Structures are given as C-alpha cells and as structure tokens.
C-alpha cells in the first residue's frame, strides 16, 4: 500500500476545495460579473431601446455627457445631501433610542417588535402613506400644524421643504434598524471598563464620551455603512412621493438613472451614470471599511 506524501495530500485537498468552489464561482460569475461587464460595455456605446441593433461604440461620450449635464450634477448634490442628512439623523436618533433601552432591557423585545414595523413595510407603501400624511389639504400633518396656527403648506411641492420631507420619511423608516444594531452593540459591550470608570469617579457623560462611544464606534460605523449604501441607492420613496420634483429638487441619482434609462430610452447614458454611482459607492465603502477596521484594531 502506497502512502501519500504531504505534497500529494496538499494537492488533493486543494483540488477538493477547488471542486467545491467552482460551482459557486461559476454562479457568481454568471449572476454578477457578466451583467456588470455588460453594463460597463453598454456605457461606452450609444445603445438605445429605440434602435437596439444600431448601437455603436462612442468611447467616454456618455460619461462626459453626464458630467456636463446640469441634471446629473443636481442629482449628485441632492443624493449627497439626502445621504448625509438621513444617515446622520438615523445614527443620532438610533443611538438615543438604543441608549434609552439599554437600561430597560426588560422592555426592549416588546419595544422593538413594534418599533421595527416601519422597516418591515415595503417602501412603496410607506411612500403612499406619507404622501397622504403630507397632503396639502387632506393630510394630517397640515391639520395638526394648523391647530398650532401654522399655515397650510405643500410639504412635498415646495422647494424649501420637499427634500426635507423625503428625508423625514426615510428617517422614520430606517431609524429603528439603526437603533436595533446599536442596541445589539451596546448590550454586548464589556461592563468592566464602564464599572472601572465609575469607580474612578467619571460622570455619566464622561463614561458615555470616553468609554461607551469608543467601544461602540465600530458597530456605529458598520450601521452607517449599511445605511449609507442603501441611502445612495434610494429610489422608491422618491418615485412615490415627489417623482423627483418640485423642478428636480428631490431627484436622487437612482431616479435620474430611471428617468433617462426607462423614460427617455437613453439606456447607454443611464448605464454610464450607474457605473459612476457604483464607483462612488465602492470608494465610499472602501474608506468607511478602512475606518471601521482601524477602529477595531485600535
């Protein structure tokens, strides 16, 4: 009977591992890589639904078009504001909720089972409900403000309030998720540093600022990353609430892509903007992931 040398054993286990990996890699390649490469290819052509067989290679024309287009620059700006405001508010409010619940863990399960409901509702339904809440004449928002003497406003139709209203809906929908993530992080923190700080005479604020915050930071950065990735791709609530208006004050990048790709049949331009959005998301993810890892190391 021949015994296998260690080299042979290593080779055999490598082949076995490869055998298990190949199906996943093939599926991943077909499902992710092929469409992605096709989208990148289309972004360098003038492909349109109107004349799909006549598309030609146009180099970086679609990218130049996007960068020169007022609409695109506006959408980029609106998306940035939307992401910063919603993710910022969701993190702050989520942290407040999580901290408040940490000392009342007995109620947390019941609280979260109700509080998480907005997250479970489909965004289209959320949009429809809020469209009625914000309705200029029939909406409960104007009614309640009217009781306080605030005049009727078209919250979704006026330049100064439309984006803010859309942000508010997103914050209502996603703060519970951030709160849950931060709560999970908070309850799993070691208690020793907190107790040591108390023994050293630290105030509650000092414990929070110098002990809890640094410990919870990696979890918070993770929550920010997940929410920011989602916020950058938001489409549904804008589609239902404002269609990007008034003028194009609430036109997020994903809506801009939809408008040009599906409504104007400028598919190659839409793919170019999608690629730009993808690059932006990758850069953002890379920076935030590095920050999270550095925090964890520290």
């Amino acid at each position, binding site marked *: 009977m021949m015994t296998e040398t260690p080299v042979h054993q290593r080779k055999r286990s490598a082949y076995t591992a490869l055998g298990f990996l190949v199906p996943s890699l093939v599926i991943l390649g077909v499902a992710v890589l092929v469409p992605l490469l096709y989208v990148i290819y289309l972004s360098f052509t003038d492909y349109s639904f*109107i004349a799909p067989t006549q598309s030609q290679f146009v180099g970086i024309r679609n990218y130049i078009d996007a960068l020169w287009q007022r609409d695109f620059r506006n959408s980029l700006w609106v998306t940035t504001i939307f992401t910063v405001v919603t993710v910022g508010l969701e993190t702050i409010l989520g942290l407040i909720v999580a901290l408040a619940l940490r000392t009342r863990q007995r109620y947390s399960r019941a609280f979260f089972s109700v509080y998480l409901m907005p997250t479970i509702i489909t965004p289209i339904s959320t949009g429809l409900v809020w469209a009625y809440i914000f309705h200029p004449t029939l909406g409960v928002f104007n009614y309640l403000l009217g009781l306080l003497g605030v005049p009727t406003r078209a919250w979704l139709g006026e330049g100064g309030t439309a984006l803010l209203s859309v942000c508010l809906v997103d914050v209502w929908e996603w703060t519970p998720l951030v709160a849950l993530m931060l709560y999970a992080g908070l309850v799993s923190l070691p208690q020793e540093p907190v107790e040591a700080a108390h023994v050293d005479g630290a105030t509650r604020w000092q414990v929070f600022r110098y002990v809890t915050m640094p410990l919870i930071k990696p979890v918070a950065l993770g929550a920010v990353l997940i929410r920011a990735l989602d916020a950058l791709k938001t489409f549904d609530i804008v589609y239902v609430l404002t269609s990007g208006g008034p003028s194009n004050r609430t036109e997020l990048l994903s809506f801009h892509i939809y408008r040009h790709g599906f409504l104007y049949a400028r598919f190659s331009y839409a793919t170019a903007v999608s690629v730009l959005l993808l690059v932006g998301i990758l850069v953002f993810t890379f920076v935030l992931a590095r920050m999270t890892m550095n925090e964890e190391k520290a």
Partner: protein
Amino acid sequence: MKSKAILARALTTALVLAMALSLVTSVQAAKEKSITILLETVPDSEYVIRLIPEFEKATGIKVNVEKTTFMVMRDKLMTNVLSGRGQYDVIVVDAPFWTGQFVNGRWIIPLDDYIKETPSVDMGVYYPSMLDLAGVFDGVTYMLPFYQYNMVMLTRSDIVDDPKIRKEYKAKFGKELDFDNLSVEEYVQVAKFLTRDTNGDGKVDIWGSIMTPKKSDTYCDWANYFFGLGGDFYTNKKVTINSQAGVKALNLYMDALKNAAPAGSMGFSFDDALNAMAQGQGATMVTFNWMLGPLNDPAKSKVAGKLNVHPVPGGRGVSAGWGWAIPWNAPDKDAAWQFISWVESAKIARQRALMGGAPTRRDILEDPELSRKFAAYYSTLKKVLPTAVPAIPMMLEQIRFEDTVNDYLGAALLGEMSAEDALNRAAKELSRLR
C-alpha cells in the same frame, strides 16, 4: 415472436392515441383562441370591458384583460415590446406622450393593410385632430383613436351663474361674465375675482382656479395658457417656447397660482385637484374632460350636477388621448386587429359613448340621442376637438421634452429664476432634442 407482435400492437395503439389526443388538443386550442389586452384602470376601459362578452360571443375569441394603473403601465409596455415574445396582443398608447418612442422604435405595427382589408373601418369618421394625435404619423396609420382627454374649463354653476356674482362682475369690469369666450388674461382676472370668503369668517373658502403645478402635471396645466395665447412649441422647426406668448403665459400662470389657487397648491397633482374641486373648494378648473365623470358622481363629489363645461380660455387647449395599437411582437396580430376593428366599430363606439365614454368620432358627437343626453359636454367638445393642439410635438424624445419643460416651469414657480430666464434656458435644452 409473439412478444414482438404485442409490442408492435402496443406501440401502434399508443401512436394512434397520441395523434387523437393531439388532434383533440389542437381543436380545443382553436376553439379557445384568446388574446390579451393591457388597459389602464380608467372609466373608458371599464366601458370596453363591459362590452367584451359581445365580442367573445361573436368571434369565439376569448379576451383576457390585464388592468393596471398609469404609474406602472408604461414600464410594463416597454418591457413587453423589448422582449422577443410579447405578452399582449392589443395595447393602448398614451398620445402624444408616448407616440414618439412607440412609432420611432417600431414597437407598434402599421395598420394600413388591415384597414384596407376591413371595409367596416372608416377612418373618415375621426376628427383630423384625433388622427394627428393618436392615429397617423408621416402618412402611416399606427393607431386607432380610443378616447380623448382633451382639456376643457369646468365652472361651478352655483357660483358663476349666481345673479349677484354676475352683477358684481359687470359692475367691476364693465362686461358680462362669458366663460365660452374668455381670453387667458380675462380668465386669470375672473379667477382672482371669484376667490372669496363666502361665509364671512375672514378666510377665503372658494378659490377662483384649481391648478396642478406639481411636477409632471405642470406641463399640461401651463400649456393651455401658452396655446390659448397663440403660442406654439416650434415655429418653422425652431423652438419658440420662449416667445412672448410663452413668457406671458408663465407670468399669468404664476399670478393665478399666487392669487387664485388654494394654499398648498404647489403640491397639487391632477388627483389632488380633482379632490379639491370635488370638496367644493374651487369655482373653476381647467382640466382634462374625463374629470367631469367623477366630479358629477354624487357619491364622491359635493359639486355633482353643478358643473358647466366650456372651452379652455383662449380657445386652443391641450389635446391628449389614447390609441389602440398592436405591438410588433403580439402573439396573434390578426385576432388583435379583429378586436380593434370591433371595439372601434360604429355600434360599439356608440355603446361606449352611451355609458359616458369620451368620443373621438364625428358621427358620435352628431348622434341625436347622445347629443341630447350629454348636451353641454358634446357642444363643448364640438368646439374643442377641431382646434385642440397635441400636448407635445411628435418627436422621438417626447418624454424628455415634457420633463425639461416641467423642470424649468418648476424652477420659475419656485422663484429660482424669472419666467423669461426659465423659458430661455428650456428653449436651449429643447433645441438639442431629437
């Protein structure tokens, strides 16, 4: 040997059975020939659906109707026409908003050969403006007009026919209140005049004009002012949205919005305007004529039975409508045409009109019974249909055209730029569109 014979017999029997089964199936299939139609959930579609059993009985073709809202309809149609094997035999196309893409993209087929072979289809009965809108493009017929939703002016008879109001108007402006012959300037003046506090609580409770400046609905609302002042989007192939008529129309529109429309109107879409009018908040509204139906429904509207219909101010309003078409990838084009020629036959068109359908044919508008039944509405339509202007010029990038205009109108309404500046910028962008 014996077993071979048994096997041969068994095989022969199986073959005969299979053939018989396939014959039965194909006969069954022929008997159950069916077509699928995509329709929007609007009253005119309902009138068609109610009559479909007649078609099924006469032809033996089963009709499957898929109903959907306007919001998702275009996406559904687009995915359908872009796929190799189509799902729908008959579709309806929103004209003029979608026609540029559907015709230029060859997503729908020419119908001229079918029309030639079908003597019962008479294209002469349609108003030429309806064929320009939802029928013939560059001499080729792609659609048969289904129904129109041209714009008209609705007024509240309990307000505008009130002798006190009429007397007050005459005393103030030195002339009779005549809604059938209002210029755009006069309309804005009348709208401001009718905006008032009727119950003496110090708050305005009746607004002179219910408007729809919310994005995507601004375009048609404003275009009535523009057309009514004699404006056109193109003159000799040059964009003329920024003409004197355009700037004046936008300034008058902003004046009406500020001084004669309910607070919060900036958020009003057509649906919101319909609600506001139904709740009795408005004295007048320039809108699509299909709104007359829901507004006259006592279950949904406080102003049912109190509405007059007039041509739009300035006499030239926005024309829009839907056309029947066959997608290039329809599974059964002949059966699809059979349905279209049936639904647009004189008999069925009349039955639809009797139920309240919006007519596109001259013979329907001149029908004595229908003219009696819908006297005010039909007499207004007779004035409106010949002069109505398609909302958007026929071009490939019609939707982009509409959005661009909407964006700049919105910028002016938000006070980001003057009317002149907004329209100049719009003109610059529109001149690049195909």
